[in-house]
Each structure stands twice: as structure tokens, then as C-alpha cells.
């Protein structure tokens, strides 16, 4: 840790033009399995003032839960920070390997708050209504933003409203093709169903967060969402993709009627529609819900393979291969059997 502190100090001194900057208290923190995440303090003088800032370092791992474009998350933070959404302030992006052996970025630490956990039966307690209203409103604001106007018009993903759905199916089918070691008949049936029953065209092309769910945002003691995190899978596509993912049963906890342990599903959809100015057509949303479980399965298959092959022995990857893949197989089997009846 001391070596990383010293190297990070040197890097930030040059980057921020602060010759007296010192990095202290660097410690790895859990979460964000696709990047190594560290918390630290940066102490330096700026404009004659002595600063003591809490910052976060996100460094590329040797192998990750899902391969993600390293600039994607940083650029999403830049765009939505400027738009006034609750995201950490991006500070520096380094694509070279000289400073810390692997590419990384630094952002502000949003202090005195915590994420909800999907393992908790009631992650937001008395604040569930307030958190839920904010959660779906922010998601709607992301959907409403024009990617070109916020500088993300060149993001990876779909450009054509007619192609967005099948492009995503193709993307995750490829991951499954590459990483599946154990035949997955339910997952294969889901891919066939999604291809045979395409949804209506997207109402617009938006920035899709890609992992917008309970557990990927920070809440303070008053029940205010202070930061939406983990944008590394963000891309351009149908905004219903985020809604389908957020209400997936995997995040539901003990009450499937309250996705993510927040507000009832119907209320969630209504708030999202108001904030986005879009409609959540039930047929289209059903397609994106089934897609969400397929995408989840693809991620878990990929994570399990990385663990089994010894490329990433973070226990969260083994957990993904065991627990979450089994849940998504069950969700898909129940839903597809019902649709086929």
C-alpha cells in the first residue's frame, strides 16, 4: 500500500499542479468487482488553502467481472456530473501503465453515506419511499438526456431505434458463446425467445447506465441519494433497458412487488415515465425484463469462468457463478414457461 501511496502522490502532484500533495490512508474497499477500488485522503494546498480531500481510486484489475471500456465510466461521470446528477466528481483519468502499473481513474469520495445491499431484506428501512422516488426519478433523467448534447454521442452501443434491442441480445449472446463451459438450456431458450419476439422500436436512443440497481448508489442518513455509481457498462440504447434491469427479481429481496426493496413496481414505472417523458409499454418492458435476466446470466457465466480459470479469485466472482446465475435461471424458466403456456 505504501508504494501505491507514493506513486499516486507523485502522479497527482503533477496532474493537479500541487507540489505539496501527499496521499494518505489508502485502503482497498469492497464493491465494484470490475475495478479495484481504493479510498484515500489527498492533502495539499490550493489557492492558499490547505485541503484534505477524500478521493476514490478505481484501477483496472488483472481480470474483471466483465470486460469494460475503461474510459466509459469516467466519461459518464464527467457528463452527468456537469448535468447536475448525483455522481462523484471525476478528477483524473490515466490510460497509461507507468504510474500505477494499470490504467486507473480518480474521483471524489462521496462521504457519510452507504450503498444498500441486495442481501438485506429491507435495505432502506424507513427511507424506502423517499429513496425509491429519487431512484426512479434519476433514472428517468438519465433517459431524458440527449447523448449528443452531453458529449456522449459517440458512446458504444446502438444508434438506430430499430436495432437497439437485437444489438444488445447479440452482444450478450457473444459473451455466453465465449464463456459458457456448462451447457445452459434455459439461457439458450431465452435467447431464442428474445429473437423471436422483438419489442417495439425504442422511443429514443439514450445513455443506458447498464447496471442501474439497488446496491449501485449511495444513500445518506436522511434517505437522500448522493451518488449513482458503477457506470462501466454504460452505452447507448433503449432507455427501457435500465428500467427492466432495475426491477429484475434478483434485486427484489423478499417482496417481489417492491423491486430493490423500495417502492411498488407500478409506482416506480409511473415516476420513471414522468421523469423521462417516455412510456413504459408493458409488452416492450416485458421483453426488456426477460433481457435483463439473460444479461445477468451472461455476466454471471463470465464471472464464474474467470474465477474457475484462476484469472480473478475475488470471492464475489464465485458467488456470481453459484448464487446469482441460479436465481436468473429460475426467473427465466418461470417466465418463459408461462409465456409458452
Amino acid at each position: 500500500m505504501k508504494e501505491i501511496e507514493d506513486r499516486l502522490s507523485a502522479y497527482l502532484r503533477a496532474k493537479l499542479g500541487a507540489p505539496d500533495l501527499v496521499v494518505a490512508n489508502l485502503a482497498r474497499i469492497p464493491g465494484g468487482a470490475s475495478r479495484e477500488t481504493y479510498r484515500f485522503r489527498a492533502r495539499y494546498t490550493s489557492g492558499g488553502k490547505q485541503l484534505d480531500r477524500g478521493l476514490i481510486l478505481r484501477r483496472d484489475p488483472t481480470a474483471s467481472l466483465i470486460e469494460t471500456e475503461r474510459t466509459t465510466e469516467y466519461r459518464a461521470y464527467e457528463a452527468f456530473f456537469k448535468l447536475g446528477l448525483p455522481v462523484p466528481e471525476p478528477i483524473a483519468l490515466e490510460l497509461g501503465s507507468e504510474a500505477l502499473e494499470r490504467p486507473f481513474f480518480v474521483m471524489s469520495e462521496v462521504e457519510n453515506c452507504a450503498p444498500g445491499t441486495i442481501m438485506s431484506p429491507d435495505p432502506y428501512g424507513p427511507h424506502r419511499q423517499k429513496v425509491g422516488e429519487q431512484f426512479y426519478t434519476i433514472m428517468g433523467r438519465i433517459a431524458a438526456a440527449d447523448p449528443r448534447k452531453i458529449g456522449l454521442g459517440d458512446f458504444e452501443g446502438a444508434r438506430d431505434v430499430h436495432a437497439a434491442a437485437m444489438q444488445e441480445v447479440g452482444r450478450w449472446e457473444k459473451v455466453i458463446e465465449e464463456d459458457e463451459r456448462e451447457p445452459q438450456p434455459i439461457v439458450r431458450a431465452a435467447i431464442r425467445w428474445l429473437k423471436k419476439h422483438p419489442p417495439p422500436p425504442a422511443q429514443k436512443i439514450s445513455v443506458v447506465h447498464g447496471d442501474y440497481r439497488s446496491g449501485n448508489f449511495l444513500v445518506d442518513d436522511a434517505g437522500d441519494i448522493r451518488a449513482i455509481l458503477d457506470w462501466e457498462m454504460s452505452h447507448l440504447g433503449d432507455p427501457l433497458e435500465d428500467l427492466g434491469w432495475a426491477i429484475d427479481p434478483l434485486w427484489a429481496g423478499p417482496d417481489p412487488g417492491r423491486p430493490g426493496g423500495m417502492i411498488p413496481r407500478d409506482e416506480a414505472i409511473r415516476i420513471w415515465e414522468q421523469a423521462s417523458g417516455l412510456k413504459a409499454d408493458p409488452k416492450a418492458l416485458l421483453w426488456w425484463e426477460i433481457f435483463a435476466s439473460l444479461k445477468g446470466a451472461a455476466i454471471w457465466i463470465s464471472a464464474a469462468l474467470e474465477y474457475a480459470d484462476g484469472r480473478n479469485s475475488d470471492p464475489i466472482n464465485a458467488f456470481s457463478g453459484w448464487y446469482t446465475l441460479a436465481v436468473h435461471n429460475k426467473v427465466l424458466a418461470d417466465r418463459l414457461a408461462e409465456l409458452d403456456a
Partner: protein
Amino acid sequence: MRPEIGTILGFTAQRIVMGLGDQGAAYAQGSAGIIAILLGAAAKEYERGADIRFNENAEIRALFGELAPLIRDDGLRRELLDAAGARDKSLRISDLNEGNYALRRLLTKLQIDAEEHGTPATRKRIWSVLKAMADRRLVQLGL
């Protein structure tokens, strides 16, 4: 189910030996929590792993035997009948998996055929087996 228990126990032991605490207390605490959940699940999987695979394989073979006479494609019908009459090599997890993977591949072929040519009753019967497989493989958390 991947990764198998042996892999999880091996990597977990390695991680503990190398030291969970060298990257900070918060990370160590988070890792220890997930490791505890994994080991609890591994203990349950040790007890039921062979049973799950043995019964799943038997159920798929029974399905093949039941539906094979309804299949028009000669090659697929023959494959189904051969698989229905086969047996697992042993009760070792690796042998049960080997048989299971072959059965799962053939189950997908059967379902594709049923989606094209089968009756609603045939498709429902296949889904009943897939649903049972999904239920059986759910992992119960907790120590």
C-alpha cells in the same frame, strides 16, 4: 454449476494464506463476509451435489424416453433413445457432470425441435423439466 467446490475451497484457502488484511480492514471484512457465505453454500453443496446431478440426469433421460417416439427427425429420435438408455459412469461429481452436459446439449436440441414441430403439451412437458432443474439448482444461503 461452476466453479465446483474443489476450486472454491482451493482459491479460498490461497486467499486466506496470502492474507486478507494486507489491503485494508474494510476490504478484508467484505471479503471475509463473502467467503463465509460461500463456505456455507459449499457445505450444503457437498451434501447434495451428487444427488442433484443424479436426479437431474435421470429426469432428463426419462423425458427423452417419453418424447422420443413423438419426434419425426430420425437422427434426433435415435439420439434421444440412446441417451434415455444410458447410465452415469459413476457417482463422482466429474462423471455426473460429464453426463449432465451431454444431456443438457441434447435437451436444447429437443426443445428447438419442439418449438418448431411440437404440440403445446410437448413444450409444456419440456418446460416442467427445465423449471425443476432451475429449482433444484437454487443455492440456499446462510450457515
